[in-house]
């Protein structure tokens, strides 16, 4: 994984010094809260319902065991012993003190981490595929480009106060695990088939999608540039961001994202304006210096070479099961078999596999939460089994990317002790959820009790496995941090006359075939939600053809049969029905 050079290290160290001074000025009253706010946000510090929350970047989802131990240390020393992994490859601590944040940032800087630009109206943490470099379906390892763009965007002076936040996601695989179509800019890396040059880096091109996003106006990004040679990314993105910085709306917070500008101009006109601006860079030798060089590629890419894989025998799942047979009791056999099926993913290298550690136990902790004990244990597992590295997924789970297949059983046993092997990856209870109204001051409604209630309702693993692939995403408000728009089932908290209600969307999907879910009708009370989900699932089970997934059944039948059953015994909106909030 990437190692800071002295430039990277100097920059994060000096950023800590800068923030320490800003906090001091805030505390001694020479910096007003209103003017401090954008500064602390650009260092990931929110003021939440109960306390300050610090969001720390895990650039493109890559984490070392050492870094994870530091996060565990921070959780214990400065927070309440746990952290929350987010959908955009960050970790959040919910209970920090303003006075201590410079010290936390200094601890992070020691292990090459920071909270720079994890919030605020600037270029946010750049996200990518949690399986980058190991996925069997990958055609380009996106990490060198991610790192080059991380450096390029860090403290970029021209784009320090954009109209609104700006999120990049970068994909290099056949499947999309980054939701790049729902980002302000999505970058899809490809090998240029027309290139005659043998060098990999010269063959690398980028398709640029702009104007995707969730929130109040969910929309998928439009392709605005095809086959951009990789080294032009800084100048092209500067041109793109300059058009947005100059012309994005600043009069209305809800209309300030780039998607509104792209929509207002039309994608073709937006692309034309970017192209016009970019042409100036292109033609000017001084500006040409903005572009990445082969030296820079080499400097960064050398950190993303393959680890020292061993030549190994390849095992099928049934071989792995039969090897394990004699040492497992009946329950363990089922658990291990299901885990192989759901939580173990194919790897580029024969004899290796990637393992997803589930941070979605049924009903006991919030989706994406990990305790400091779990973090330390996972760090040990990473050291022992996976070259000391791990990754954070968009679905708020953790990945050990390079496991020898022959070690899977040992890993499973070890991770089981820390409640990390629930075989529910990609199933109904692998819920994406924002922290919601329990923590967030923006939220209209709570997310976590809803997630808990659904997980408790669907606690039968036999049944979950029978249902197969299905995504359920929960957001506590229209800011959509829980990505409900792209969940097969989406749950959105809304406020009606001071009460918490929940709106259901169906048919959302992430990936190359992404779609935005449709609202099924009027919203429900909190404690109706498990029944509503049950009726949606029952409709699917009754209507599905053999092997048909939930989303395929939905796409075949449309919303009507689901809607009909969902409202048959719920959503009457009668106060006399004694329905209310989930305690």
């Amino acid at each position: 994984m990437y190692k800071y050079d002295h430039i990277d290290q100097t920059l994060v160290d000096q950023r800590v010094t800068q923030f320490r001074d800003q906090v001091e000025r805030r505390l001694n009253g020479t910096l007003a809260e209103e003017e401090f706010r954008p500064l602390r946000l650009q260092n990931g510090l929110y003021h939440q319902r109960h306390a300050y929350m610090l969001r720390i970047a895990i650039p493109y989802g890559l984490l070392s065991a050492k870094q994870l131990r530091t996060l565990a240390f921070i959780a214990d020393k400065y927070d309440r012993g746990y952290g929350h992994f987010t959908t955009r490859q960050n970790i959040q601590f919910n209970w920090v003190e303003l006075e201590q944040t410079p010290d936390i940032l200094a601890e992070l800087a020691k292990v090459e981490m920071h909270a720079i630009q994890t919030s605020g109206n600037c270029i946010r943490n750049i996200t990518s595929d949690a399986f980058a470099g190991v996925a069997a379906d990958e055609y380009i390892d996106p990490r060198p480009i991610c790192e080059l763009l991380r450096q390029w965007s860090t403290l970029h002076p021209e784009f320090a106060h954009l109209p609104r936040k700006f999120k990049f996601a970068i994909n290099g695989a056949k499947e999309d695990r980054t939701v790049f179509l729902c980002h302000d800019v999505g970058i899809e890396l490809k090998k240029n088939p027309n290139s005659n040059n043998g060098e990999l880096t010269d063959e690398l091109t980028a398709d640029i999608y702009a104007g995707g996003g969730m929130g109040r106006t969910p929309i998928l990004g439009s392709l605005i540039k095809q086959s951009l040679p990789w080294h032009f990314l800084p100048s092209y993105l500067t041109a793109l961001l300059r058009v947005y910085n100059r012309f994005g709306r600043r009069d209305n917070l809800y209309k300030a994202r780039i998607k509104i500008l792209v929509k207002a101009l039309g994608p073709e006109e937006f692309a034309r304006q970017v192209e016009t601006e970019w042409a100036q860079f292109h033609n000017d030798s001084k500006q040409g210096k903005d572009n990445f060089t082969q030296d820079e590629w080499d400097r960064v890419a050398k950190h993303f070479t393959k680890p020292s894989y061993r030549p190994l025998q390849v095992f099928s799942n049934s071989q792995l099961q039969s090897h394990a047979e004699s040492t497992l009791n009946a329950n363990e056999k089922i658990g291990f078999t299901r885990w192989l099926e759901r939580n173990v993913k194919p790897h580029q290298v024969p004899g290796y596999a990637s393992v997803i550690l589930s941070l979605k136990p049924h009903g006991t902790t919030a989706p994406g939460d990990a305790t400091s004990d779990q973090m330390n244990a996972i760090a040990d597992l990473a050291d022992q089994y996976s070259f000391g590295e791990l990754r954070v997924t968009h679905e708020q789970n953790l990945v050990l990317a390079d496991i020898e297949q022959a070690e899977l059983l040992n890993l499973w046993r070890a991770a089981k002790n820390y409640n990390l092997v629930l075989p529910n990856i990609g199933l109904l209870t692998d819920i994406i959820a924002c922290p919601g109204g329990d923590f967030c001051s923006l939220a209209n409604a709570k997310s976590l009790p809803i997630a808990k209630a659904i997980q408790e309702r669907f606690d039968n693993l036999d049944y979950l496995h029978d249902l197969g692939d299905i995504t359920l995403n929960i957001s506590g408000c229209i800011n959509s941090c829980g990505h409900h728009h792209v969940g097969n089932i989406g749950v959105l908290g809304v406020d009606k006359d001071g009460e918490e209600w929940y709106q259901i969307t169906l048919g959302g999907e992430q990936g190359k075939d992404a779609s935005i879910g449709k609202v099924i009708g009027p919203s429900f009370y909190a404690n109706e939600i498990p029944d509503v989900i049950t009726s949606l699932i029952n409709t699917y089970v009754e209507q599905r053809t053999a092997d048909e997934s939930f989303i395929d059944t939905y796409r075949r039948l449309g919303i009507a049969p689901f809607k009909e059953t969902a409202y048959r015994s719920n959503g009457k909106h009668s106060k006399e029905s004694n329905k209310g909030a989930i305690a």
Partner: protein
Amino acid sequence: MNKQIISFPINSRPSLVPNEWQVWDGEQDEDGIPDLEHGLHKVLVPFHWWITHYKNPDITQRANQGDIGIWFAADDDILKHADIIEASKSLWPVIGAHFPIFRDGRSFSTAALLRDRFAWQGEIRAIGDVLIDQLIQSSRVGFDAFELRADQNLDVALKQFDLFSVVTQNSWRDQRATIAAS
């Protein structure tokens, strides 16, 4: 107006210097710039006012004496007015760019374009809601003079420019530091 500004020319050290320029909002007088006989003689006029008045002989004369500069509002599209800017810029000793509020970053792009596209070599002065914590970014994109909001501590302000010794992207003031692959 602030009696002192920070001047930070490229390849030089930042320092406090007397403020010689009055920023005029263009609104108090229909007929022309305010009477400057009894105060400062130099005035930055709004660019939109310049467009409609620069052919006025009195204005031309005062501009020729070096007493008139212009300032761009955050929402001025300077590329749309490229012809007028190219034709007029030799008359301006100073260009201002305005921050209606500190967290409005449009003037960062204005300054970058003035340096890149118009090859403007003269002073670009940050005016308006200019706070200590905008100085680093603005000094990098093209600004080299700063009239801070009156309540800002100038000693604290001057220290900002030394906070970072490295940058990771190019800008008007500095090129990104790079280390060759070893």
